[in-house]
């Protein structure tokens, strides 16, 4: 009986699931990222519409500054009120996962290992001035440094993929 209920619930969720391709998502992200800077004042710095690393940094540092009266660096766009992209993405993804029945607790890797990866990715992203999304956004806005950073990222991904493949083939 319990299995039937689960199956119907999953089936109902499957019917409600909206199919979205990566192509459509890319177009929407591009428009929204530029609109955020042009109409909603998410600047300076320029080309700051969407960035998971910088916006996460702003939110964390803004909160710590508020609570502990420190002076950690935040971008000029989020001096008064913080940017909430991080919170929004988490909420939106929870919405997407729950309406399509894809929410499931799982643990594919050691969380301590991914914790260290997280620290390293954030530090490298702040050094380069943007996560993978903002590097591409800066390149699109006509900034040479953004294009250089994106080239560096592509090299990093190629090296990382080769490393994973080499490790898997041993």
């Amino acid at each position: 009986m319990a299995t039937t209920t689960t199956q119907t619930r999953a089936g109902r969720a499957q019917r409600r699931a909206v199919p979205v391709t990566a192509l459509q998502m890319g177009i929407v992200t591009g428009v929204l990222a530029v609109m955020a800077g042009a109409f909603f004042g998410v600047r300076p710095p320029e080309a700051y519409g969407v960035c998971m690393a910088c916006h996460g940094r702003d939110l964390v540092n803004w909160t710590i500054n508020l609570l502990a009266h420190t002076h950690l660096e935040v971008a000029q766009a989020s001096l008064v009120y913080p940017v909430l992209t991080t919170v929004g993405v988490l909420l939106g993804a929870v919405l997407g996962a729950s309406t399509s029945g894809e929410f499931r607790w799982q643990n594919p890797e050691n969380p301590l290992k991914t914790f260290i990866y997280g620290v390293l990715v954030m530090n490298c992203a702040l050094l380069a001035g943007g996560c993978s999304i903002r590097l591409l956004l800066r390149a699109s806005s006509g900034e040479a440094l953004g294009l250089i950073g994106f080239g560096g990222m592509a090299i990093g991904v190629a090296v990382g993929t080769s490393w994973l493949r080499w490790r898997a083939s041993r």
Partner: protein
Amino acid sequence: MTVAIATLVIGVILGYLGQRSRMCFVGGIRDFILVRDVYLLKGMVAFGLTACLAFSLAGLIGLAPPRLFGISDVLTISLTIVGGAGVGFFSTLANGCPLRQHVLAAQGVKSSIGFLAGFFAGAVIFHAWVAPLLFRLLP
């Protein structure tokens, strides 16, 4: 206030679409190298082209200042290359770009929640220790 509300709404839209489309800005290049799959790569290229077009349109009506390809000093360029390569390398090892990790964490993947914890701790670590150290070491 506008900034906070606008980014929250944009975030919700991106989170929903990202969950439905499994979009990843690192996975595009990775999948192409590994199995010649262009599904995610198409999304990344579409993002770049759309943003390029939208920036030109916004520039035409005076909402985005034109940014000519300027020349930076060697140190900034090297730091950007090193940082970019680090983002690419470690994101590949962690199995997804920061956006994908946010989406996976919201889907209940515990290792991605660990990634996010490190991600936010990394912001404080960078501004409290790494950046001052770099300022002192680099010319």
